[in-house]
């Protein structure tokens, strides 16, 4: 079987995925699947999407070799610079794809969930560009720790609602966005921000991020004449990892998705069903979903995209975890050695690379730098004093 191709007719990657949604949403998921399938096969939609990625988001994003840090760690470290996209992260790829699709489907309004605010900002940006109404749900805890992004979204004309239920973080923002969608499904598209949720989202969002891996592969070949030995990305829901993995899943490269220790859904290895999908899920002995705890709002998610669960279950990708303390180190390391401030999410990948470097001497390591750290500077200022 070809890896990272289309899921089965029921939206399965192996035993993961599916469409576990209330009856009210089934027709909308079916309609979305049909619309995406048709658009993705339509050269004019592809051309429109590629043009907007180029002329608005600033693609292709470059790759940057980290000579200083690479020398220090004894590896060749190359970054895929998704932090340089418009709005500062990879999230814009998916959002531009989904909003183009929403318009094609005749929807007037989008709703989105956000953790760190990157997907919310990207959604608000695309909504402004395309003339769509936009409402973003964000956990109340995250609203506090990412105040700047909240202001950005409002500046872009979106409504932001602080979600006070449950753990008041990303998972609760997803719940609230789904509740909104259940009530407004006829006029509204749910612009889900990761490779998660009910079919077709995990597949569709991965396809919208495939450009990361496709570009990186070409760039690596042009620069070094070979595939990397290791491809690394951080994983919350897992969209940036899926994007870069998709370019290398058919190579010999080792694929590594780094989870936060306090949100290690794959690491715990227990499947569950929430937010429309069957996937690995942090839960207690009765199946109550547990709260993730991580220094980075964007990775504070107790689940993971179903295709990651599948890649883990067949051993094609590995999912180690790093602690908040290691992440703080990684964050400062890149800033000091390379003059690049990474998003806290990406600092997870750096933390793993620096820990694992002794076992990768002389190897070429490609890391997806999926977002820039400007949004995290206030938080880090408090932590580092």
């Amino acid at each position: 079987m070809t890896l990272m191709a289309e899921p089965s007719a029921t939206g399965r990657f192996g035993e993961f995925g599916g469409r576990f949604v209330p009856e009210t949403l089934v027709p909308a998921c079916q309609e979305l699947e049909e619309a995406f399938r048709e658009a993705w096969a339509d050269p004019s939609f592809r051309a429109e999407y590629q043009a907007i990625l180029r002329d608005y988001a600033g693609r292709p994003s470059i790759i940057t070799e980290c000579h200083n840090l690479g020398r220090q760690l004894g590896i060749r470290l190359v970054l895929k610079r998704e932090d340089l996209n418009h709005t500062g992260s990879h999230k814009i790829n998916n959002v531009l794809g989904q909003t183009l699709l929403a318009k094609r489907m005749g929807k007037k309004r989008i709703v989105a969930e956000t953790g760190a605010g990157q997907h919310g900002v990207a959604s608000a940006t695309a909504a402004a560009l395309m003339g769509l109404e936009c409402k973003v749900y964000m956990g109340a805890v995250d609203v506090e720790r990412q105040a700047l992004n909240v202001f950005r979204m409002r500046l872009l004309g979106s409504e932001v609602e602080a979600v006070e239920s449950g753990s008041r973080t990303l998972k609760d923002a997803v719940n609230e966005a789904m509740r909104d969608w259940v009530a407004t499904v006829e006029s509204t598209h749910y612009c889900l921000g990761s490779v998660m949720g009910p079919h077709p989202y995990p597949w569709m969002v991965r396809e919208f991020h495939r450009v990361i891996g496709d570009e990186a592969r070409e760039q690596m070949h042009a620069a070094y004449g070979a595939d990397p030995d290791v491809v690394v990305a951080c994983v919350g829901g897992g969209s940036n990892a899926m994007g870069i993995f998709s370019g290398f899943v058919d190579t010999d490269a080792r694929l590594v998705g780094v989870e936060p220790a306090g949100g290690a859904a794959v690491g715990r290895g227990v499947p569950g069903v929430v937010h429309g999908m069957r996937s690995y899920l942090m839960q207690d002995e009765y199946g109550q979903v547990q709260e993730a705890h991580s220094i980075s709002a964007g990775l504070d998610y107790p689940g993971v995209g179903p295709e990651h669960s599948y890649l883990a279950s067949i051993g094609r990708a590995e999912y180690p975890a790093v602690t908040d303390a290691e992440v703080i180190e990684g964050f400062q390391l890149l800033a000091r050695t390379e003059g690049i401030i990474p998003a806290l999410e990406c600092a997870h990948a750096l933390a793993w690379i620096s820990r694992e470097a002794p076992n990768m001497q002389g190897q070429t390591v490609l890391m997806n730098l999926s977002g820039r750290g400007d949004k995290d500077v206030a938080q880090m200022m408090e932590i580092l004093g």
Partner: protein
Amino acid sequence: MSTAVAYGRMEQSFRDKRSAGRKLLVPYITGGLPGWEDALRAAVAAGADAIEIGIPFSDPVMDGPVIQQASQLALDAGATPVSILDQARALDVDVPLAVMCYYNTVHHAGHHRFAEQLVAAGICAAIVPDLPLEESGPWCEAADASDVETVMLAAPTAPDDRLPRVCARARGFVYSVGLLGVTGERSALAATATALARRLKAVTDVPVLVGVGVSNAEQAREAVQVADGVVQGASVVRRLLEGGADAVGEYVAEVRAAIDG
């Protein structure tokens, strides 16, 4: 050989009552909420035809603020699916009992094990609001094997060709979702409530009950002009939260009178 269908306990009871001209009333009560067993008995005494026991879940995406709050209070009080089923076993009421639970509760316990736990607790039916028709196979198979009736939900968004397939898989009753949205009280019964009930009545003889957004006695009376009965969720739970078992009993009696009248 007779070809008579053997209905489950809840469906047989509902069909008998419908034949006798009675409209069906199913209050929802959040299991594990302090005082829930007294409230349940009060609802039965006031004329409920069955009770839907909510098993609280951490992420109830089909529920609005009132039932979310009740679920959280129950979880905070230490309620688990096992503790609620243990308490249900001791209830000793003479109407059929159903559980309303999210699919991860079932999935985590295991389909067959969960079905057997329900049977052991004297529960005859299950409503799983995030398990649509296409994903319902493994659970329904286990439920059928244990004679647990699986109530299917039908939504206003369903195209005509979907409704007969949903009804064909429904046991106990068909839960006709009253509006586009989550559970909670509204100032008026949505037009979708009676419209969907009418569409369902045209394609099935399984009892059709309207739930979600049926918020008071008057709206219940309106709904049963078309449907065989109503499920009352947030309006019951709010009274339990605010006034305890007595308030639940009074309210159920009021709705009973309205739909009997």
